[in-house]
């Protein structure tokens, strides 16, 4: 019935459903579909149409199979899991696969053969702090000199209030979505709704980003608010666009219940191209092996119904539009909205306590590192640079500063990584019982920069893949162009954060990030690709040097 040779996304129907989604024929023969529909028209027109959800069409792939009970026999569980797996792959909107798993540094992780060195890292840091304190006590009489304290406390109350307001203001997403969903006219999602949403989002982002600039906040408060705003913005965007897509799907599904008229959109279900093609190939093979004797209308209805049901099979689209669901989503450590996430059976308060403790411990360690090893170096170099006239001396001092900052920045980088991806996100996962703890993959083994960007921040990577890369692939951009756009947006966001920290918009970070694209091209050369150890060494060298270089550039130049 289906042939794999047909190029995807080349249907001749007009793109009626908005700019992002691209029609893609699940079954390539459209004339055949229309023909079959004509035949079915006569048969089904007299049938009683169900109100919300269409009936399950085939028993073997029913979309609302109940999740088996815990004491069900393994065969039932396995079948259910397999079905869920298939359903997940057959969805139209690019999905993020969530399942129950632990992170690499979790004590429950299987990879414990080198765990002792992880402990050594923490013991080493603790001893470093203790010796730093002792030295301070000896020279200044105080345990720690905390010169940065005023910058932390300067705007703290305003920050708390503004942050709360910002979070609250994401709530406009819900009424807006109800508006698109219930509108019959031009405000529908696939007409003007998407545009309205984009404008509102842009205004929202611009307002909250500019607030600290206008109010002249200290850099710590500003960075916190900016990062939080960016995270919230991504959540907002994901919520709006996924639900918008679902509202369109639902309305199409309902339209099929009515007697079929020539105006009813009869195109095959819309499908986003997935970032990796092999998934689709596997799916198509799977389709071919399936029983082909299903009428196209039933197939269409089945596909649409599957789309509005969550991958785990417990939630169907309009039921999720509740305030509780929205709040839960805001707390969940993810940036991609899904109807349902896997959850752990219970919340461990002890674990939550440890994670919270670790967050504050890490922040303390970072402060000590910067107070003891970063700020003195920078101050010293600044004074020496001011005294020199000769550019050779200046560049030597600059190079020395970079080399002195290498180790502190390496430690800070690892700490920032751990505090965000292991402890903060882990704590939120513990609060919401979110079961998928894979917030990072083994980026430390990266061989090229693309791999690093994919692995070190998985929530943002998922967001970019789903809402930027796939969306831009959807408007017929080539793969490299989509990658470039994704990198560009990411580089702009990073430059924004750097600008907030240093109050200088020099674009060094932006340039370095965009330079990763040609680097990746080199790293992808067959000969270079084979040198795994060399690539990993280069990755680490550039990682450490890059951070220290950026800091020196922004502060000193």
């Amino acid at each position, binding site marked *: 019935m289906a042939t794999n040779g047909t190029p995807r996304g080349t249907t001749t129907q007009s793109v009626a459903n908005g700019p992002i989604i691209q029609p893609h024929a699940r079954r390539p023969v459209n004339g055949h579909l229309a023909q079959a529909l004509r035949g079915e028209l006569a048969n089904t027109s007299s049938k009683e149409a169900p109100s919300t959800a269409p009936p399950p069409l085939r028993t073997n792939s029913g979309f609302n199979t109940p999740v088996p009970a815990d004491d069900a026999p393994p065969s039932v569980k396995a079948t259910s899991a397999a079905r869920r797996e298939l359903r997940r792959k057959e969805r139209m909107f690019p999905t993020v696969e969530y399942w129950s798993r632990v992170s690499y540094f979790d004590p429950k992780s299987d990879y414990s053969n080198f765990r002792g060195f992880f402990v050594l890292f923490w013991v080493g840091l603790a001893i470093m702090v203790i010796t730093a304190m002792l030295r301070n006590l000896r020279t200044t009489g105080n345990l720690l000199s905390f010169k940065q304290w005023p910058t932390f406390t300067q705007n703290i109350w305003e920050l708390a209030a503004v942050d709360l307001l910002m979070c609250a203001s994401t709530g406009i997403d819900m009424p807006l979505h109800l508006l698109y969903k219930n509108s019959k006219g031009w405000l529908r999602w696939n007409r003007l709704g998407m545009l309205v949403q984009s404008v509102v989002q842009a205004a929202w982002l611009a307002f909250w980003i500019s607030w600290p600039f206008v109010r002249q906040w200290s850099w710590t408060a500003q960075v916190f608010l900016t990062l939080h705003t960016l995270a919230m913005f991504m959540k907002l965007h994901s919520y709006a666009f996924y639900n918008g897509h679902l509202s369109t799907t639902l309305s199409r599904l309902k339209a099929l219940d009515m007697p079929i008229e020539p105006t009813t959109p009869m195109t095959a279900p819309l499908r986003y191209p997935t970032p990796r093609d092999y998934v689709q190939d596997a799916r198509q093979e799977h389709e071919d092996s399936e029983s082909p004797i299903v009428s196209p209308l039933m197939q269409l209805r089945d596909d649409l119904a599957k789309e509005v049901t969550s991958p785990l099979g417990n939630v169907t689209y309009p039921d999720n539009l509740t305030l509780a669901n929205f709040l839960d989503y805001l707390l969940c450590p993810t940036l991609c909205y899904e109807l349902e996430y896997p959850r752990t059976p219970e919340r461990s308060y002890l674990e939550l306590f440890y994670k919270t403790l670790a967050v504050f411990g890490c922040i303390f360690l970072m402060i000590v590192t910067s107070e003891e090893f970063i700020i003195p170096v920078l101050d010293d170099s600044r004074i020496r640079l001011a005294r020199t006239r000769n550019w050779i001396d200046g560049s030597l001092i600059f190079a020395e500063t970079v*080399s002195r900052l290498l180790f502190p920045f390496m430690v800070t980088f690892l700490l920032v990584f751990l505090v965000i991806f292991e402890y903060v996100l882990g704590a939120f996962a513990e609060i919401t019982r979110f079961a998928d703890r894979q917030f990072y993959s083994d980026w430390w*083994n990266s061989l090229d920069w693309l791999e690093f960007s994919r692995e070190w921040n998985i929530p943002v990577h998922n967001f970019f893949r789903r809402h930027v890369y796939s969306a831009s692939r959807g408007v017929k951009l080539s793969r490299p162009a989509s990658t470039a756009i994704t990198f560009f947006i990411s580089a702009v966001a990073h430059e924004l954060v750097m600008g907030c920290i240093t109050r200088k918009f020099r674009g060094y970070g932006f340039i370095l990030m965009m330079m990763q694209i040609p680097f990746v091209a080199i790293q992808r050369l067959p000969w270079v690709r084979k040198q795994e150890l060399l690539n*990993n060494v280069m990755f680490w060298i550039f990682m450490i040097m890059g951070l220290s270089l950026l800091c020196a550039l922004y502060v000193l130049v």
Partner: protein
Amino acid sequence: MVETSGASRRPPLESQDTLDQVKLTGTLGNDGVASLHPEHGSNGHALPPAEGATSDTRDFGGKRSKSEGSIQIRLEKTDRKGRYILTADDPEIREILRKGIEREELEAANKKPRIRFRDLVFTRQFTTFDRQNPASSESPFFGFFTLFWIAMALLLFQVSMKNFREYGSILGRNQIMKMMLSHDVYVLGLTDGAMCVGTSVTFFLQKLVQWRVLNWGRGAWVVQNVWQTVYLASVVGWAYFREWPWTHTIFAVLHGLVFLMKQHSYAFYNGYLSGVYRRKLLLENKLKQLQTMEPIHSGPSSPRDSRQMDAFSSGLDVAELSKKASEAINNSDLKRRPSIGNRTSTNLAVEQSDVATIASAIHAGTAITPDQMSTFEQVINTELEDLNRELAGKSVSGAHAYPKNLRLLNFAEFICLPTLVYELEYPRQEKINWWYVLEKLTATFGVLCIMMVISQAFIYPPIAKTLRMKEAGVSVAERWQEFPWIVSDLLFPLLIEQLLTWYLIWECILNVLAELTLFADRGFYGDWWNSVTWDQYARDWNRPVHNFLLRHVYHSSISAFHLSKHTATFYTFLLSALVHEMCMAIMFKKVRGYLFTAQLLQMPLVMMSRHKFLRSRAVLGNVIFWFGLFVGPSFLTSLYLVI
């Protein structure tokens, strides 16, 4: 070299350290409920009940259960890992089970004296940080290993730049290198060669024992011990006499200690085998004597008759003996028979075993029946077979069985092998990978370089400061005030030095040596970084020495002096602490006992860590372990330096 990926994985600790286990031990209750634990807890509990039942009963009931065909046995998994409750409904099978278990128990009880020199298992394996080891090179954390070496390289770079700016040379003042090469470098090389040659004394002593000039059990072992003491004393004395810098001294003493342990292991293993060999010769003699004897041809003798006659002649229970002998032959596939006494004994007159009784019967020259004669022959042959197996040791083919192994080449080879425990044969690999040797040699020199730079840049200045203070005559109280600062200055560099020294010796040098000598067992260390207790660390970080101590100090003291396990552990720790303190005394030229105290303090710490509270908290245990390892070296060094 890589056989399979599975073979390279280190077997779990328990199976390597425990000694020659029985296949199956079990207990049988009055109701016929038997609980048994198979040899490895892990292979048993994965089996489905039905298969487990058949395979277990076969081991267990010996030959008879095989012929029984299918018997209904229920095998129930209990809550403990690897333990099953086996219930048999058939009374006959109960009987079989009970007999099997009783025999196994008997063997288990008799097994103790057998474990003397068969305790270590050498297998093909790789070290953990070796790139040939898939567990390491495919570890998800491999990137951090790269990061560590990059950090070291950057450190090297930073230090050399700083040196260049301050002294105009990337090496800086380079006092340590100058001190190391100041004098007697050639003498050190010559001394090392002399030490190496000197070990051959042990070899010739064993030759004398083999030629029966000396008897190992009677006095040769005393000679060996005296020689070892002389050897060590002369090395230390020579180092003092030449007034070597401490680097020379510590190298010579450590190398001397290695040779000492090798000699000890060689001598005591071969000495033990010489005793076994003597007994073998004696029994062969007895057998010949027996065959020359003329049996009396009386009529068909009933067992009662023979028993009466035996009681009359030598008090020997022939029926019992013949039963044992036939059992032994029947079960020879199990390789486990009731032990027949001490296998090095050559004085059959005082021995309390069946062989001794037979021997005395032969000696008495009393008339025996053909029945008895064949029984006697069987018993002696069984014993001889056992002795032969002992003499062959790890040499399965018997090509290196006891007297054949006493060749100079074999001894020289053992001196070169990266192990301290003598065995007749080790697992070997087929060829040398010269690229691997090159890689590890490069790593050796690279690590040495890093260590030099770190000690010059970070360790030398604080130490020089304390020495200057001492020379300037600053009082102890004032120096004591400086103490915490010296400790804090030395913390990080000494930790890195410690890690690098360990990596240098146990990963680089020993692997080079092993590759050059085709030695396949690279289990030079375990995953000590995950240690939860100090005894775990002591076992894992230095496996060659641990193996030596386990066999030649711990087990030998248990079997020779009949010490309890705890006392034996204590003496092992004590010996190790004494040797460490000796090294410290040589290095700092003063005896203070700080390291000695610290090492003996580990014993109560180990007991504490066995407490329920710490046992369930593995991470806390690991944190305490690392904290100790971090603070310990710099604390001790500062103590030795300041006071």
